[in-house]
């Protein structure tokens, strides 16, 4: 097993979020949930980060910022879109300057719907992301071994595998989040 799943360092970027999801992300780091138990550190530095948490939708102003942060992160890395805004634009979708969810600019590995996403759902998504991180790590180790001619298909395969994994992982997270949302409604 690689150590990457034991110490996922995260970087959190606030797109055009309403701050609801940001507070939930930070709640994960607080004593109540204390994700540092699993080695998660909020780095604030893309060069040290393994997991990119994005809240809020993408607009004309921040699309380059998101792209740049993503590019500065060393491989292997995963992206988690937190909140329905980050998934597809959410309630801001129709706004004149909103491009949509995070996946309009960078590939996303896990989605956490919900408005705001619950800390439990966020933690679930990061854990799901760790599985993908592990696969990416394995793919990274394989890549240099392959001859240059077959490199591309190999990379594609890896990507496909990632996508498949992402899809497979998404489902439980979404369910969990929906359940959480429903619970929230009931409580309200």
């Amino acid at each position, binding site marked *: 097993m690689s*150590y990457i799943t034991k110490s996922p360092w995260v970087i959190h970027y606030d797109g055009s979020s309403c701050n609801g999801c940001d507070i939930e992300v930070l709640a994960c780091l607080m*004593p109540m949930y204390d994700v*540092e*138990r699993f080695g998660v550190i909020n780095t604030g*530095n893309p060069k040290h980060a*393994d997991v990119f948490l994005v809240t809020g939708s993408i607009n004309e102003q921040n699309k380059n910022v998101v792209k740049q942060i993503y590019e500065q992160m*060393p491989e*292997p890395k995963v992206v988690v879109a937190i909140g329905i805004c980050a998934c597809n634009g959410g309630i801001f979708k129709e706004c004149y300057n909103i491009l949509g969810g995070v996946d309009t600019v960078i590939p996303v590995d896990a989605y956490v719907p919900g408005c705001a996403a619950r800390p439990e759902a966020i933690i679930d998504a990061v854990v799901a992301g760790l599985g993908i991180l592990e696969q990416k*790590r394995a793919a990274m180790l394989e890549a240099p071994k392959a001859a240059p001619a077959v490199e591309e298909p190999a990379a594609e395969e890896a990507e496909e595998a990632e996508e498949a994994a992402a899809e497979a992982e998404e489902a439980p997270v979404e369910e969990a989040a929906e359940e959480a949302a429903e619970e929230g409604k009931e409580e309200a």
Partner: protein
Amino acid sequence: MVKVIICVIAYLVLAPFVGGILAGLDRKISARMQGRVGPPILQPFYDVLKLTEKENITVNRVQDFYVMCFFIFVLVTGGLFFAGENLLLVMFTLTLASVFLIIAAFSSNSPYSEVGAERELLQMLAYEPMVLITCVGFYMFTGSFQVGQIMLSTQMPLPYLIGLFIGFVFILTIKFRKSPFDLSMSHHAHQELVAGLKTEFSGKTLALVEAAHWYENVFLLGMVFLFFVNGQWWGYVIGAVVCLGTYFLEILIDNSFARMKWQVAINSAWIVALVLGTVNLFMLLFI
């Protein structure tokens, strides 16, 4: 000679384990002080091993070279110390190591790491006088700068060097990069300088920096230990206990203070060096 070689090899092999576990304890105790559960004790090892698994991104080639020099010279520092060499040489080697780290940070041309490097220079300015005065104190007490000779002393230096001890523990806060004075970079997340000095280091380079800090911390605790040697076993026991106590004190300070400005760091460190250090040296002259 054989003993010296054993000491040096023991340091080179064991120091990362001791340093890593101390770092793990640090994080665990800090978490408990903040009402959290905290990461496993072995977390720092996981972190460093993970960093070695990451893709290598370097801003330029010289940066890796300088970081490597930093790592090697930290090892040389500790090696010389545990070989019983000259205390002044040891301290100057440590300064050289820090200079390499600063150059590495400057070489990246990133504003964050540059400001971090500038602050690191200021920190060096703050702690160097006290470090040198401590060395001189040991010389005045034992008549030798050789660590090997100081280890042979039959009298515990602490009662005679108490001022120097307090002063040295004071600057340890700077050297351990603990809170009121963690200006150049912090072990904790999120600060105004991103990650300060180490902003541009990633992957294996960052792993080297972390490992070097473990070596450095063990060496610094060795300096604390030196205040307690009296040639008897109970002196060694007291020394080891006080080392752990000092480390705990630093964690406590770390968690109970907010960061201060660099002016405070320099002023307070120099005042401590001037008052406690020189007064103690004069006392030694007249005893």
